[in-house]
């Protein structure tokens, strides 16, 4: 059985090894962009069925972001929405035969968490100023500075490990079941994987939102800051 922690390059472009998650991500990207192009070409004030579903999703996203951040969702909409949709599609792409979800590998999850980490820094600096954002690390006292720094790192790692562990375990369990029983038996586990994939996509997006919201609001309102979990 192959280790889920190791990926072999499919081919090389010059010195760059191209691995399976990268190719899968490209395909997913192509599908998403094509779909949005088709959709945005046919956007109407009176929505069709597809447009209505998409508007429902974006509206729900806006609502969730607004509830977590407690401010206008417009600056965070693109980041959180893209992360949610990408993770969701990537998690569910494991249902297609022969496709391994890109999120079942540490590298993709690391890239996603890196994005969230960068967005946290960016929005924290943008709303509090550079010095103001640095000051938030000394909340509530300067003794907390090392802990806060460590927290920034650990929560990013926990984001990576959570998504990776959930999706990878699902893929792993289905692989084991297939090797043991074969036909029809993995289907309930695959259904569970669908649920887990959707929940993990939601949790990843919401946690990213919580982190960004905490970075934005910590300087603004120290009393009601959200202690981010490690």
């Amino acid at each position, binding site marked *: 059985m192959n*280790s889920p*922690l*190791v*990926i072999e*390059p499919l081919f090389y472009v010059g010195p*760059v*090894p*191209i*691995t399976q*998650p*990268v190719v899968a*991500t*490209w395909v997913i*990207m192509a599908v*998403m*962009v094509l779909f*949005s*192009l088709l*959709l*945005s070409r046919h*956007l*109407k*004030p009176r*929505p069709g069925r597809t*447009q209505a579903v*998409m*508007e429902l999703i*974006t*509206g729900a996203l806006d609502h969730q972001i607004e509830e977590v951040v407690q401010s206008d969702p*417009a600056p965070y*909409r*693109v*980041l959180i*929405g*893209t992360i949610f*949709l*990408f993770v969701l599609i990537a998690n569910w792409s494991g249902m297609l035969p022969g496709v391994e979800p*890109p999120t079942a*590998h*540490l*590298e*993709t999850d*690391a*890239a*996603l968490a*890196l*994005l969230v980490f960068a967005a946290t820094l960016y929005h924290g600096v943008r709303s509090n100023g550079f010095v103001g954002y640095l000051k938030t690390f000394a909340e509530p006292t300067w003794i907390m500075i090392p802990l806060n720094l460590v927290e920034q790192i650990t929560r990013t790692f926990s984001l990576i490990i959570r998504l990776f562990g959930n999706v990878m375990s699902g893929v792993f369990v289905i692989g084991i079941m297939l090797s043991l029983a074969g036909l029809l038996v993995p289907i309930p586990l695959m259904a569970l994987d669908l649920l887990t994939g959707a929940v993990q996509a939601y949790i990843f997006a919401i946690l990213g939102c919580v982190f960004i919201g905490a970075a934005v609001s910590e300087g603004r309102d120290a009393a009601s800051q959200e202690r981010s979990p490690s």
Partner: protein
Amino acid sequence: MRIDWWTIGLQTINLVVLLWLLGRFFFRPMTKVVAERRTAANEMLDAARAAQEKAEAATKEAEAERQRVAASRQEALEAARKEAEAQRAKLIEAAHEEARRERAEAEAALDHARGQAEAQLARQANALAADMAARLLEGPAAKLPLASFLPELEHALAALPKATRAKLATEAAPATLVSARALDEAEQQDVREALGRALGHEATLTYDTDLTLIAGLQLSGGMAVLDVNLRADLDRVTARLDARDE
């Protein structure tokens, strides 16, 4: 365990590109269309609210109009009622007036009729008195001598105009002398003489009798009739009484 740093880098670039693409081609048009629809909906809501307000204003105005119409109707009714009352009062007044006038007229007519009846009565009384006088006088008056009337006849003739006198009792047109009783020869002679004196020429006479004269003479000839008798006196008296009673 081996972390593939190339894959991490590639995936990060992939994700950033996806972020940009989705932001450009998915989220921006979606947000725009939603905002547009919201604007349109707000506009429609505003228009609907404005229309509703207008309708309410129109309703209010119609209500006011209705009340105004009702008030004016009430007013018109009141005026009509007043006018009818005035008309009625006037009619009643007119009727009263008419009745009063008719009563007055009736009274006047009654008075007139009564006056006429009284006059009639008086005339009858006069006639009766004259009649009674005539009856009373019939006996004694017949015995009056002719001579007592002649001076009066002469006097009456003298009052006539000369031309009439000249044509009276000529031979061509003899006058008629009517007396209450038949005259004898001597009396006729006296009369002729007296007339001749009065007329200035010979009198040519025919004689006649009429009992209704009671006593006295009547000379008629040409256009003149001279009455010197009691009947004529009675008639004059009666006429004068009637004139007084009228």
